[in-house]
């Protein structure tokens, strides 16, 4: 019988259900909270948890990890530690690929100093390059709580349907109180196109039509997602640049988790100089962020 290759296993694999979750451990002051949050989430999803450590363990470090796992009440069979040497970002990503990780959990500070932003922290670099979904925890707790209030960004992209389905899956697992489906409408040139040849009424009518068709799109997408009827969904249409508008929305509404598409492509320094989509959110994380990577796109 022919063995299924890793590439074949990964190809077109949906970002949910989450079967394997990994957490990168760097022994920062918040490492215990990050591991406990990841373990709680793994328990909710009935997923395996992999703790990834890059480099050699210092004396006592492995023991600390084992204690953490014990405290988080995760069964031993569902958890293992991988320690490997190598360049941090590359090694973490390669471990995720080899172990078919569905979600990589990382601790991240909300806002980085300007220089770090341009040089790039490990968490930000992984967020841009990862080929699996990534969860950035901005405020992890040693006594973690489930994500009760979730927001998902909806933009015009083929990835959006899968991202929305993942959001519905997580909302169901977490038994969320509400799921905000936020349609980001970006209309560059709207004002200039209408500036000299439209009345106030026409202007408002055109905006109302855009809102109406956006809501219809959301409804059509939700109808196709199994489990969406069991979640309390609140749909919103907001105007602005994708990424930036949902970041502002999240700052105001303060959800526990914001879910967005993975970036279309990674262009390195160009993305930082001319930020778009995900870069606006990474610049100043409004809350915990989950970047859904839809394989096959």
């Amino acid at each position, binding site marked *: 019988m022919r063995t299924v290759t890793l590439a074949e296993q990964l190809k077109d694999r949906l970002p949910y259900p989450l079967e394997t979750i990994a957490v990168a451990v760097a022994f920062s002051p918040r490492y215990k909270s990050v591991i406990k949050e990841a373990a709680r989430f793994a328990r909710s999803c009935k997923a395996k948890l992999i703790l990834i450590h890059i480099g050699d363990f210092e004396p006592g470090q492995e023991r600390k990890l084992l204690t953490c796992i014990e405290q988080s009440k995760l069964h031993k069979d569902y958890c293992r530690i991988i320690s490997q040497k190598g360049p941090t970002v590359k090694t973490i990503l390669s471990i995720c690929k080899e172990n078919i990780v569905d979600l990589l959990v990382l601790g991240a500070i909300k806002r980085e100093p300007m220089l770090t932003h341009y040089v790039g922290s490990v968490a930000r670099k992984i967020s841009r390059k990862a080929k699996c979904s990534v969860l950035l925890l901005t405020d992890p707790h040693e006594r973690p709580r489930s994500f009760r209030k979730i927001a998902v960004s909806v933009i*015009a992209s083929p990835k959006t349907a899968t991202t929305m389905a993942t959001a519905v899956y997580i909302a169901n697992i977490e038994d969320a109180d509400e799921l905000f489906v936020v349609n980001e409408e970006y209309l560059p040139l709207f004002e*200039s196109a209408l*500036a*000299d040849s439209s009345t106030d009424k026409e202007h408002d009518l055109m905006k109302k039509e855009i809102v109406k068709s956006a809501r219809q799109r959301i409804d059509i997408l939700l109808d196709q997602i199994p489990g969406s009827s069991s979640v309390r969904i609140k749909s919103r249409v907001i105007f602005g*640049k994708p990424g930036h508008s949902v970041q502002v929305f999240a700052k105001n509404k303060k959800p526990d988790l914001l879910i967005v598409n993975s970036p*279309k492509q990674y262009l390195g320094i160009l993305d930082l100089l*001319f930020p*778009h989509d995900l870069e606006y959110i990474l610049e100043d994380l409004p809350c915990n962020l989950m970047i859904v990577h839809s394989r096959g796109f």
Partner: protein
Amino acid sequence: MVKLGHDDMIVFLIALGLILILSRVFAEIFKGFKLPAVVGEIVAGVLLGPTVLGFFAPETFEFIFPFIAHPEFTSTVPVQYAMDAMINISVIMLLFVAGMEVQLPLVIEQGKVALLTTLFSMVIPIGVGFVAVKMMPELFLVTNGDVNIVGFFIGVVLSITALPVIARLLMDMKLFKTRIGMTIIASAMLIDLLGWLIFSVILSMIEEGEKSMSLGYTLTAILIFGVLMLTIGTKIIDKSLPWIQTKLSWPGGVLALAFGLCFLGAAFTESLGIHSILGAFIVGIAFGDATNLRDRTREIIHQFVTNVFAPIFFVSIGLYVNFIDNFNLPLVSFLLVIAYTSKILGATVGARIGGLNKTQAWAVGVAMNTHGVLEIILGSLAMAVGLINEEVFVAIVVVVIVSIITSGPMLKRIVKKLP
């Protein structure tokens, strides 16, 4: 000090008042035919200017616009200065607003297809324009200028796409957010940026001898100013906007900042030996790219410039140029043919190579062949420095108007074939 006298003031204010009211009347009439305001404004200028009013009622024309009918009269010279200043300020503000429409992140996001569409829809028209002038300099009435520079200029004019016109068309046809729509918008934005950079180089080449600025100096200055404004400049503007929009009077504070920066940028590039319009355009890009700029503020800036300053410039075109005397049928016909073929072909080929299917690529090609405001500004500036004469300018204006009228129906025919 030269000052506007009592009579000059009356003449100047009557002219401004008539320009604004009549341009709005004609803009509204043409809106009924689904045509942009700019067409109505140009027609208002043609009717008010030497072409119609000056021909059928010369006394009335002389009474209302003595500074145009008799520019040699010294008593009206200050009015000419005032009018010239108003027109220059209008062009600078128009370029600032045009810059605000360019969203570089959107261009980057659209990636390969937008880049290839841009490349081909610029290279082919520029090449065709250049060869056409080179082979037929007498048709383009190149007498004292450099044939190469005129050829290059005609090519740049043919390569530009009218962003607001095509944006409105795409919105009306519900194509704006489709792959075709985003490709068109992103490509038109990039062409705007590149077109103005190239045009600034052309202007510098013309003025090189006069101001002894080398081409290398101009290019370096443009590059440094552009890169600094679009990276650090954008960040500074973006970070300061929340404070300005909440702590200062609104919209007074942000309007002062916007137009203040626009004029400072224009002055800076003018002092470098590059035309002031480039400074205004680049500051416009930096300002428009700021994520913290409120939609309402953007709308106010657009309304203010488009409805007050743009008409002054577009009506002035018809006021100063006689469209009948300078209508050269062979030139207009030839320019129309090369404009349509080169632009449609270039953009279609680019979009096809970029990955769009045949029908989508044709739709992009036809839509990209919408010329507009910027080509007219380019033409008027080129005419002001003596690069082209009035006949070539009239031909450019006709190409712009014809392309605006035809692009909608042509695009609709192709869109019907889309699956």
